[in-house]
């Protein structure tokens, strides 16, 4: 029996974005995803915004440690080392 291949709808696509970005979609689903993105302006924009959000989330990192906290932790290390000896 001839099975008709159906493309993804927008509603289906939005559920697959993280899998797509993780490279976790099957080859078939990835093709369907990319075919839809190529043809659909809204979903293309949605994917772009999803990626922009992820990039902005990564910018939340601040990598400096509070000097007071650092001192406390080093003091704690000193105590531990002494107790061990």
């Amino acid at each position, binding site marked *: 029996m001839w099975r008709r291949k159906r493309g993804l709808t927008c509603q289906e696509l939005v559920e697959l974005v993280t899998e797509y970005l993780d490279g976790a979609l099957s080859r078939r689903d990835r093709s369907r995803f990319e075919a839809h993105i190529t043809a659909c302006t809204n979903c293309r924009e949605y994917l772009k915004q999803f990626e922009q959000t992820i990039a902005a989330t990564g910018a*939340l990192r601040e990598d400096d440690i509070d000097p007071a906290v650092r001192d406390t932790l080093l003091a*704690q290390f000193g105590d531990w080392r002494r107790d061990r*000896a």
Partner: protein
Amino acid sequence: MNDSDLVAALRRGDESAFAQLVDELTPGMRRFARAFVRTPAVADEVVQEAWLGVLRGLDRFEGRSSLKTWIYRIVANVARTRGVREARSVPFTDEPAVDPDRFSDGGHWASPIEPWDAVLAQELRGVIDRAIGELPEQQRTVIQLRDVEGWSSEEVCNVLELSETNQRVLLHRARSKVRLAVEEYEHVA
């Protein structure tokens, strides 16, 4: 220094090795702890207690996981006993990541997706930070580790003891909600 050299140095009482590790991991550990507890102050206490747990557990560390993963698991365990921010696990539902009302019957977008205007990085950080703060714990911890800290899927699954599939579902829900928060901000701004 690789993990086993680092662990050996710590066991020898090498303070500079410990300082280096503290500098490298503490900010991320604090952010991670914040995903579990109510206030930054409690998060700081959790981190301090976790480091103590690390030192005390050093002799038992076998290197089956990476040092970082092992340390973060300690943070998670301490944080969970210290602060219940809300019900720990939300029942796993099949609800979609995007509200079905956004779509027409045929599954198309009911209204167009408008491109975003440039927003000050500072403002955007605030919106995203708040949105993450409102997520259920499991979604919060996954997006924290994956997208804020930049960890791999495997490392996250290791620390949070989740299957890869579950981890990805949680991440997707979290990201969808955060994206929505930015969209709502964009529409008002």
